[in-house]
């Protein structure tokens, strides 16, 4: 948000990044324009449901063209190790999202938090301890203190 406070040290020219982003946004804008013609105009209304998205996608297309033609700066992109760590974290989180209901909150969270703490750079021992503490504390906080029901473990009432 406040570009003026950032130091320039971590910046790189965004020739590739900005162009890829511009191309993706252009596809998005053209697609939105295309699909908006399927939205039938409401009767008795001067502006139908498709008009407004068209009004939006036109400037979006123009701006993404500008981004392709005149790319600016990017923050430095992460190295391979960091990318791997981020991908693994997202994988853990996505699996957790899918498993929290079938497995129940406590077992799924225990595994997920321990893996997360590991990925954020702790050794196994503190990861196991703090993961267990964090999962139990969150469970206690939400289930008992705040009264928000979380998915139970199958076959058990907690």
């Amino acid at each position, binding site marked *: *948000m406040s570009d003026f406070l950032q130091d320039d040290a971590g910046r790189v020219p*965004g020739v590739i990044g900005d162009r890829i982003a511009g191309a993706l*946004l252009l596809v998005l804008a053209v697609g939105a324009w295309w699909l908006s013609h399927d939205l039938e105009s409401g009767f008795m209304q*001067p502006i*139908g449901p498709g008009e407004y998205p068209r009004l939006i996608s036109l400037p979006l297309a123009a701006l993404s063209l500008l981004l392709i033609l005149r790319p*600016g700066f990017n923050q430095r992109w992460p190295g391979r190790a960091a990318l791997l760590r*981020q991908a693994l974290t997202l994988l853990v989180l996505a699996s957790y999202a899918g498993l929290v209901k079938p497995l129940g909150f406590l077992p799924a969270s225990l595994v997920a938090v321990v893996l997360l703490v590991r990925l*954020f750079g*702790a050794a196994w021992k503190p990861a196991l301890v703090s993961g267990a503490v964090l999962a139990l504390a969150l469970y206690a906080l939400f289930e008992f203190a705040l009264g928000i029901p979380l998915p139970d473990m199958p076959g058990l009432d907690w």
Partner: protein
Amino acid sequence: MDILAFLAQGFAVALEPQNLFLAFIGCVIGTLIGALPGLGPVNGVALMIPLSFNFGLPATGALILLVSVYYGCMYGGRISSIVLNIPGDEPAMMTTLDGYPMALQGRGGEALGLSAVASFVGAGVATLGLALFAPLLVQFAIRFGPAEYFALFVLAFATIGGVTGGSLVKSFTAAFLGLLLGSVGIDAVSGVPRYTFGLYELYDGIDFIVALVGLFAISECLIYLEDIRGTSRPTLTLGSAMPGVRSAGRCAPTIARGSLIGFVAGVLPGAGAALGSFLAYMLEKRWVGRDGRFGQGDPRGVAAPEAGNNAAAGGALIPMLSLGIPGSGTTAILLALLLSMNITPGPLLFEQQPEMVWGLVAALVIGNFVLLVLNVPLVSLFAKVLQAPGWFLMPMVVMVAFVGVYSLNNSAFDLYMMLGFGVLGYALRKLEIPTVPVVLGLLLGGQMEFNLRRAMSISGGDWSILWNSAISVGIYLFAVTLIVAGLVYSWMVRARLP
């Protein structure tokens, strides 16, 4: 005096035990979140919104809680700036310049105490300004029709990019991306589903709470993962915060100037607290001139930005409450909260629900005192939290985000959506495309389209209604002026910085 009567009524609301408790809890949580490096008011409030929904709080209570978190974050941001030389949040950036040198000289406690008093005065000035000016703005805004409101939305988007000084193309791209995302879901006027691709989860549109938590909390964690080692932190002896109170007496003129500058910066749509603290610091440096030792631990260099950013935080609430136009990223999120509770901020809010508006103002006054107490004698407790390692804090943030979002609808779809927005937010930040306009677009798009279509059905399809009133032309002119001013300003900053 009408305002006094309203304010008395407001204090009656704010002093109800439940609301008092919420204000207190909000201040503590806010100071904690603000103190943690990387987590600022935007993340803090975004993280708290799903929770406050889950509590089933009434609108007034939820708003009091979140605004206390907001004020608390603004206070807390300075702690890690001073102690670690890492700004706790964006607006606290300027405080590192003189706060950390003071800490290195063993005057950390003084800096913390001084900045707490400066924050207190800044927030106090802003709250007073809110009570005085918001009703005036409301009387003006009461004459607004749909065309004028449409113009106001254009103003909000024009300024959010213009004033912050980043790349204009990128800010506007972000805004239009947000607007397009905001058009997903069933069209409220015709009932036609748009861009839902048959997914019934999308019929209600993209839930902006889910989007927010993803864009801010999850993307912050992805950024953190880039470098998990972090820098080694020297342990500093802080000392008592009490000398800071005396030091604040000496800096009184600085604090007064910083508060006023910050307040004005906050009221301007799109500027926000980061600009408030930046301007307060730069102008104070200019004002004091050669006598100052800015950058080497001058107390005035701590007092000015802290007064400025807290005043801006309060000032930003004025356009949010009275016009429904957020003045900053965080107020955009507060606006999201109100809209999702079916409360539309704007002139009518003051007429229809005065107890809520004035209860909020009173809660801010009370919260400000609570924060002063928390931040002068107890500040070393908060400074201790900073010693907690990132590998513990960040997973905790992720988990709170997960549980909060999951319990909104008990749906895994929301969680996937949140992760998707997390990746989007991360990519945008790497591309230096600001995320706040995306949120604004997502949030205001519905209202903007609604007003556009209402204006068009009034005029029978004649587009000229949009620029046919003096008020809307005035608003457009103001928008253009702000964009031009923003361009000139960012050019000046760029010329100044090495």
